[in-house]
């Protein structure tokens, strides 16, 4: 049974490609005891270390675990990864949510068009955004996964500031952007 749990744990870290907390790992492998779960992850971590694999499992300061390439190897194979995280349409919707979060879904749809319903669903599935229900409406915000991916602050308010600062530094403050054409609403992605 421990073998199956170990396999599921390793599989979870492999497919997600992002830090997973102990609770998430536990829900996949069917275990509750934090110590037991940590023990399982650590044994996989050791196996990778012993085999001199370029893949490593890190235990982050906040207690999450992540499987990743050792940085010294990563740079040599970067050219092989050419897949974007998202296609342009969903990426724009995500960017907008990140800047305006917490933001009602209705506002996202108003600005991004009806296709954004599909984007929101996809972003939620990829754990890049989460939502709270307030009555009949939903309020969207980005997740820790999003912050981790782009190395941004985990606090939404600080993240917004960070994004605005970078935009300002680039001399492209939100207010200088010219008026858009109608094409953005009709984009098909």
């Amino acid at each position, binding site marked *: 049974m421990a073998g199956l749990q170990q396999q599921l744990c390793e599989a979870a870290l*492999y*497919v997600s*490609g992002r830090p997973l907390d102990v609770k998430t790992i536990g829900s996949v492998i069917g275990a509750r005891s934090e110590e037991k779960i940590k023990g399982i992850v650590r044994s996989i971590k050791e196996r990778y270390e012993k085999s001199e694999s370029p893949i490593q499992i890190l235990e982050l300061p906040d207690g999450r675990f992540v499987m990743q*390439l050792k940085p010294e190897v990563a740079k040599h194979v970067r050219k092989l*990864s*050419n*897949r*974007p*995280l*998202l296609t*342009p349409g969903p*990426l*724009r*919707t*995500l*960017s*907008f949510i*990140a*800047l305006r979060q*917490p*933001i*009602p879904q*209705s*506002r996202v749809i*108003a*600005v*991004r068009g009806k296709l954004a319903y599909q984007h929101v669903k996809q972003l939620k599935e990829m754990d890049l955004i989460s939502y709270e229900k*307030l009555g009949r*409406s939903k*309020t969207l915000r980005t997740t820790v996964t999003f912050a981790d*991916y*782009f*190395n*941004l602050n985990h*606090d939404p*308010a*600080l993240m917004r500031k960070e*994004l605005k600062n*970078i*935009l300002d530094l*680039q001399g*492209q403050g*939100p207010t200088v*952007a*010219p*008026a*858009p054409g109608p094409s*953005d*609403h009709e984009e098909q992605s």
Partner: protein
Amino acid sequence: MTTPQDTYWLKQPYAVLFDILHLHRVKPWDVHLEDLLTGLMKEMRGRGYIDFSVSGTALLTSAILLRMKSELLLKMEEPPRPPPEKPTDYVPPPLAFPIRYQSTTTSLEEVLKGILEVLKAEKLVPVGTSQLVTRTPAVFEQADDWLVKIEEEIKAFYGQLLKAGTRTGRLSFLKLLADGDAVQAVRMFIMLLFLAFEGKVGLNQLEEFGDIEIEMKNVGSTTTD
């Protein structure tokens, strides 16, 4: 008295012939009179007993239905065509994809580019009231850093209160706030709530929206621990 097996004509498919009151609901082209009447006659003969009131009613209904059909024809309404046949084709089950991790390359630059593009569209869309309601009020956003250090802030604030209130034991919220803005008022009020909860001050407000009187309690202790 009739027994259930005697009322075969009230069962399907003949029931339509004996429900004259609801005949107007029937689509005449759905009723195949010839089949029904032939069937009914056969049933009667099979039983060796002809009930003329039953056959009479069936005849009346048939006449009404024929008349309905004739009227529709006179209105040039053609009998409905069968619905177009849906294409039938085998749809295989969903394929089970193998799972491979694939490293992705989207950079923060691309997110920023996305933001700039969307901001153009956002300008055209007026802000709805729902957004105003759901967004975090600016007061709380500014309070982020302050909230992190709230315990230290309360300690320092209590120190100030002790200094200012040792003589009278009572202080005015508005006087303490002096020229402070809304954010400072919220912060001071939150700190007072904490102190009141700890029993270090009492709060009295005599008039709605009026000044708050701060009553110093247990004067002598200088910590909030």
